[in-house]
């Protein structure tokens, strides 16, 4: 698959929602080690809002779709997750202005913009045990795979693998952001919930795309 249309993108997003919903208990469990145990619930709420936005976003434009999704997620009262994930999609939307379909390069550029949007909100760096640790390798993998005409499904597959590896690696890290920083060394040994949900989102994007293919 070399290009993604508005409808394919919507499928990808639906795939992400399904993936989160399947794993939300795990996410909350991870969050209850150093945080307040609500990450699964918050992500499920965010996904529900996203699906509402997918259902009601009728412009057919990629930019609008992503922007509606982003604002819907921003509207979730979800602690850290709402603003970060919301700005992720809102920033992707800005990069998608005018695009009718996305090639592999566009896909990488959009996700890069999303990463930039997230990083504008937080000082968290790679290694600080946050969603950044899943997002950065995923975006790098997308960029690396973004030859012109490259297979997007394959690129997303690599991104999902990289995100998962990144998320797993956070279990060796000590939390320096979010609530979990309060437990200091005790955060070592458990994956970061935000990084984990980010890797699930990528796996869901891939599955969504697969199902559409």
């Amino acid at each position, binding site marked *: 698959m070399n290009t993604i249309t508005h409808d394919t993108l919507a499928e990808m997003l639906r795939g992400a929602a399904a993936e989160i919903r399947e794993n939300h208990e795990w996410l*909350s469990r991870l969050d*209850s080690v*150093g*945080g*307040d*145990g*609500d990450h699964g*619930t*918050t992500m499920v709420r965010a996904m529900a809002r996203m699906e509402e936005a997918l259902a009601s976003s009728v412009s057919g434009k990629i930019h609008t779709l992503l922007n509606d999704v982003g*604002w819907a*997620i*921003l*509207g*979730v*009262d*979800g*602690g*850290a*997750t*709402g*603003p*970060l994930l*919301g*700005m992720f999609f809102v920033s992707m939307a800005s990069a998608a202005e005018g695009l009718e379909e996305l090639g592999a390069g566009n896909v990488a550029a959009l996700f890069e913009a999303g990463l930039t949007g997230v990083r504008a*909100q*937080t*000082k968290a760096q790679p290694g600080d045990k946050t969603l950044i640790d899943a997002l950065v390798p995923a975006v790098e993998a997308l960029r690396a795979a973004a030859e012109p005409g490259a297979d997007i499904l394959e690129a997303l597959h690599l991104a999902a693998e990289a995100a998962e590896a990144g998320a797993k690696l956070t279990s060796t890290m000590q939390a320096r*952001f*979010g*609530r*979990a*920083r*309060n*437990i*200091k060394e*005790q955060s070592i040994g458990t994956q970061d919930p935000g990084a984990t949900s980010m890797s699930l989102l990528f796996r869901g994007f891939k599955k969504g795309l697969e199902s559409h293919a």
Partner: protein
Amino acid sequence: MAMKKLINNPDNLAKELLEGFVLANSRKVALVRSDLVVRAKAKAQGKVALVTLGGSGHEPALSGFVGEGMLDISVPGEIFAAPGPPRVLEALRLAKRDAGILFIVLNHAGDVLSANVATGLAEKEGIKLRRVLTHEDMSGGPRGESDDRRGLSGCLPVIKVAGAAAEKGYSLEECATVAERMEAGMSTLAVAVSGATHPCTGDVIAEIPEGMMVVGMGQHGEAGGGTQPLKTADETAEIMLTALLDDIQAKPGEELFVMLNGVGSTTLMELYLVLRRVKQLLEARGITLARSLVGEFLTVQEMGGFQMCVGRLDAELKALWDAPCESPAWTAK
């Protein structure tokens, strides 16, 4: 043990409690858009407005601080979760005025992120605001590393003096200076003796072992060290006050306020014992207990324990502390 709470559908909890809150305090507060808490009688447009945001489940905080001489608008979130940026932006639009908005944010990841996004959008719309971050939880890390210190119940004294300043007609800059001076001179430490349950999930928040207490826990009971055998009221007062005085480097001759914020099931009775000992200890150090405040202001459900917040007062801050106010959680003539 299973949760023993009188609630309805957990999904509607934040919304329903807000309805009841406004009903119970209808002479002081009202709702706009069904989800923003404003004063029953709006402040004059010429005066600086105070806005804050924060999760629900900590009643009376933060919406209980809305009223004359205190906040103009509070944006309540879901249970323990900050409200999303769009609603915060709505609140800033509602408060928009030439005098400007003092935007008070408690240092918690979600609150700060939401406030950041909303602030960025508001500034693009030409809304004049100054942000003040409260981050006085000394258990978060060394003084000065503001990112690591969360905002606990110390937001209340900050809101009180800044709110009084705004009411007196101080400029935005002056209100911010007052708020920041109060914030910079204070420190909070929490002790937990028993846990609570999350009202939506029924999950245990902070399990405190039998016979133990934990000094240095945050607002939602995130773990944070300081587990030790349960002490007497006098001993606990001394452990906490000593750490706090050390943190703010209080010196003989100074005037301080002490606030004891019960977080749930700890009784006023116990807090009074603690205050009694605090006063004795301060006297022994030649420090004046200039003002005190004892009650439940920022709670964590039925958790047992309290937060002790200690801070410097100067003549101006004392006058602002004493100024009249009329909010659900604090009314003074």
